[in-house]
């Protein structure tokens, strides 16, 4: 960065040198001296003509290079900061935090590039100019300092505050226009059916107008501050000329330097004029920096990192209350059940009842303030969250696939797995046919977030991945949601083997296949309202029975 500043100064100096030497050259030539007297100036002009462009090139290169390495450090720092956070903390506002961070890191580029080095260059150039001119007349100093103050401080500051004053409103107006547009497109059926189209169009147009007015106001501010800067440039050239003419008149300044001064001052403004435009990036950069540096510290500090010898799959929950973040209300209350090797527990209930939160609670993705979770008799606080997660193989509701090959995605669970281990889980998850049908087999890329595959295929890769992990407890969140009955049956058959010595917890939204469960928990509004085997629950004619009836009432196509 320092090198960039230095090169920036030299580039400006090169420009000043080129133009003032050129002016000196022709002024001198006008006095008709011998050619020899001009030769130094001629060489100088040619030298600066070439060097100035090269310096600018080098300056751009170093500034960008420094910026990118700073951004790399920032990116790593951000990740290291996010990594320990709980998923619920990261996924807040539908993952908005992530998007913001990505943009924020990018935004900082403008800060490093346009707001860090250029003001330093301007300052150094001003000091150098003052040093050179101080020998002539102090009046020059006043002119230059005032001009640089206007261009380098007043205009950018004015621009900044102008921008700041309108930015919030601009953001809100854009958001509201965006909302109207989404309404107009996604809600087109309702618009027509309820004759709402014209009204919405009216709203859209008036919001668009408001946006235009705001943008015009901002554009006006930009144009005006830039015009002020330019006028300062021409004005100070004029002042310098005026002063110099007086000096020439009194004989304090040789006439040869008259043109030189004008050119030098004019070209020196190259250092300070871009600052106004750069200040446009200030509010955004400041906001980005604020967000980045106020990233929450992870609040989870429990658990001394302990690596126990292989725990078996015995997990017991007693009267557990669970919440996703410290200030949220609990999503689970008074939950008790226990998992044992070979035992299968199903969790059913309406959507939003808290089924998936059970898995989050087991994985320590939140706060369990009341009750206790024990692993093989030892309290969960005894283990580090990492050690706890080692116990579980999870098939989440939405399997996340990385933009890599199928094989790499599965091997994530166990990078050292052998070919035969890989093949075993592939056949257990009924993926064999799919993989054989792909030209590149297991090396096929799955696309961004696995978009090249169907929901069912993603889910089966998730199952294969979970099986490869060989953890004693299997947690499945609606594992067959995207599978047809036939495939689901095949996957289930493949799972039997794995289920024999592991404990398993199944979340399901379809009340099928419940015969094979040792216990069914009916969750409603965060609590277990009924429990038992399928036969017991149906006999009870309670909540489960009602759900069962609803399911039977459904027509056989959807």
């Amino acid at each position, binding site marked *: 960065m320092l090198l960039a500043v230095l090169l920036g100064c030299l580039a400006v100096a090169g420009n000043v040198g080129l133009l003032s030497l050129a002016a000196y050259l022709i002024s001198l030539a006008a006095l*008709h001296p011998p050619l020899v007297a001009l030769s130094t100036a001629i060489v100088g002009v040619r030298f*600066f003509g070439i060097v100035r*462009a090269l310096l600018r090139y080098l300056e751009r290169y170093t500034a960008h290079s420094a910026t990118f390495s700073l951004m790399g450090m920032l990116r790593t720092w951000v990740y290291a900061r996010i990594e320990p956070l709980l998923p619920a903390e990261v996924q807040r506002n539908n993952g908005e935090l992530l998007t913001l961070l990505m943009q924020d890191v990018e935004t900082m580029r403008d800060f490093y590039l346009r707001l860090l080095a250029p003001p330093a260059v301007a300052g150094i150039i001003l000091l150098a100019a003052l040093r050179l001119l101080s020998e002539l007349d102090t009046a020059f100093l006043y002119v230059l300092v005032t001009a640089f103050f206007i261009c380098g401080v007043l205009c950018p500051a004015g621009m900044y505050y102008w921008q700041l004053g309108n930015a919030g409103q601009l953001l809100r107006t854009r958001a509201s226009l965006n909302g109207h*547009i989404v309404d107009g497109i*996604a809600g087109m059926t*309702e618009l027509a059916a309820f004759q709402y189209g014209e009204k919405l169009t009216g709203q859209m147009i008036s919001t668009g107008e408001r946006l235009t007015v705001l*943008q015009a106001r901002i554009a006006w501010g930009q144009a005006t501050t830039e015009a002020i800067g330019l006028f300062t440039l021409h004005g100070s050239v*004029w002042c310098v000329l005026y002063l110099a003419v007086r000096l020439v008149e009194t004989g304090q300044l040789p006439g040869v330097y008259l043109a030189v001064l004008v*050119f030098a001052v004019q070209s020196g403004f190259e250092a300070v004029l871009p600052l106004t435009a750069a200040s446009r990036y200030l509010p955004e950069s400041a906001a980005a920096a604020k967000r980045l540096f106020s990233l929450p510290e992870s609040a989870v500090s429990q658990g001394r990192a302990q690596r126990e010898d292989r725990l078996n799959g015995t997990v017991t929950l007693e009267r557990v209350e669970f919440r996703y973040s410290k200030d949220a209300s609990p999503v689970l209350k008074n939950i008790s059940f226990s998992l044992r090797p070979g035992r299968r527990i199903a969790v059913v209930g309406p959507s939003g009842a808290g089924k998936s939160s059970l898995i989050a609670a087991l994985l320590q993705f939140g706060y369990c303030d009341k009750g206790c979770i024990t692993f093989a008799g030892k309290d969960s606080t005894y283990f580090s969250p990492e050690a706890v997660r080692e116990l579980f193989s999870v098939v989440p509701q939405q399997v996340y696939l990385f933009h890599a090959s199928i094989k790499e995605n599965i091997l994530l669970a166990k990078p050292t797995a052998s070919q035969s281990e890989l093949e075993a889980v592939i056949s257990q998850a009924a993926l064999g046919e799919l993989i054989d049908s792909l030209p590149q087999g297991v090396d096929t890329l799955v696309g961004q977030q696995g978009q090249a595959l169907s929901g069912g295929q993603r889910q089966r890769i998730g199952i294969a991945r979970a099986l490869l992990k060989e953890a004693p407890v299997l947690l499945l969140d609606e594992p067959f949601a995207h599978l047809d009955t036939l495939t689901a049956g095949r996957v289930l058959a493949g799972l039997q083997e794995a289920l024999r010595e592991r404990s398993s917890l199944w979340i399901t939204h379809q009340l099928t296949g419940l015969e094979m469960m040792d216990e069914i928990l009916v969750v409603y509004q965060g609590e277990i309202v009924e429990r038992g085997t399928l036969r017991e629950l149906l006999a009870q004619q309670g909540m489960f029975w009602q759900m069962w009836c609803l399911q039977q009432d459904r027509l056989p*196509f959807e």
Partner: protein
Amino acid sequence: MIDKRLLREARRHSQWFLLIILLGLAVGICATLQADYLSRIISGVFLEGLRLQDVRDWLSILLVIAGGRVLSGWFLELAGHQLAFEIKRDLRQRLLDKILRMGPVAGASEQTGELTNLLLEGIENIEPYFARYLPQVCVTALIPLTILVSVFLRDKITMVILLITAPLIPVFMILIGKLAEKKSKQQWEYLSRVSGHFFDVLEGLTTLKLFGRSREQIKVIAAMSQGFSAATLSVLKIAFLSALVLELVATISTALVAVGIGLRLLYSQIYFKEALFVLLLTPDFFLPLRQLGSQFHAGLSGVSAAERIYGLLNRDFTPAKFGDRTFAEEADCTVAVEAVSFCYPDRDKAALKRVSFVLKPGEKTALIGPSGAGKSTLVNLLIGFLVQQEGSIKVNGVRLQDFSLLEWQKQIALVPQTPHLFCCSVADNIRMGDETATLAAVVTAAQAAGAHDFIQALPARYDTILGDGGQALSGGEVKRIALARAFLKNAPLLILDEATTGLDPYNEKLLDESVDRLMQDKTVLIIAHRLSTVRSADQIVVLAGGQVQESGTHHELIEQKGAYYTMLNGFQGSL
């Protein structure tokens, strides 16, 4: 890079366009005059021994010219923005009209995200084209030209130098551009992959944690960032290189001009005043050319946005013709669908083939069939979003197309499968059913729909803002708001898609009760998903492959032992 269609937009607002050209010219002339007076003053004082009082008038004029130059530049920028605003407003309105006229069916072929993006970002991308790129093109054409003419009058040799070096700039730009294009394309691909990877890791953080692999990613990201900056730099290097060439041409020409006139001055082939004038204008001559390079991107994104905007605007679309008959107040509604066939324009297989049935007042008709059977096409025909190619739909004995479409749609209350909530308050969302309704009427409708209780629990009750970015509601709650709309509208024909809300017995019961209330005394078409609904219907229409397989009451159809019977029997096992 001068897009014809965009230029045509500019011509619609020719007064602004003309102003931009005039102001560009004014800036050029001011720059020339400024150089003229500067050289006059300097030369006078330096060589002719003029004193301050002798040049005082010139100095004042110089100040005025400088002011004029700045003012013209200022106006030029404002005019550019104004032109951009006018055009943006125009295009936005035309796009909106087009999209709304295309309606939900033709509009549904476009992706929602794509359309939203076009209306927001696409339109915004037009701005830099008119606000910056186009004025810059004018300025680039006008200022060097003005300078060239004035230099020609003073010193022809310099003009020749400028004339020779200036075209070098575009030539070099094109040469480097061609060289760079291929390389930068490869690099950008790599870049987007790397930045995608970073995003991938963040998005998949939970998964990484599940497998205990999240911490090692810190190192991976550091390494990736390094590769990222190296790749970006190598792309930028090309951009820097073209800037280097531009500046090199400009500075070397300035040096050439300076040395040339210096030598001629030495041998008295030129006056100092003229020489100074030429030297003053040389940097100004190259500046606009260099600035055009930096606005190139603004031009490019404008043109690519225009491509998408005009792609949509120029799409063929002729709305169906409707008549102007109106309905009597409080009229009942009998709808007869008679041998209706419909085929989407871009498909060969008909979506509906000779479909017939009658909807009668006070009767409930259940429409069932697998997805793709033609249920939504049928609904779209009934609402008037589509018009059948064969057969007819008659309302109270009159062809549907003879009515005014707006009047007809006022007769329908629609509850779609996934209702859309708009970005406004709960009350206004319900009020879509009847814009003039009082709050009391809205509350009554909400109560009838079983929505009042949960609305009362919302942060601002009926004033809570819903929709994109507003309060999020559950599926069952959204459905109840849609029912409230239908209650408020109180139209004679009710079209309802009965999507179930999952396994929530409490919600399901609430919805059932409200739907039953809503259906009373109306002509009802219900797209059924549940056996109990079908059982209680007065008529069941079984649709498959675009054809009516059979119709009748539950008992009739069971007796017939046709498609309906097999379907239920095969799945249910028992009835």
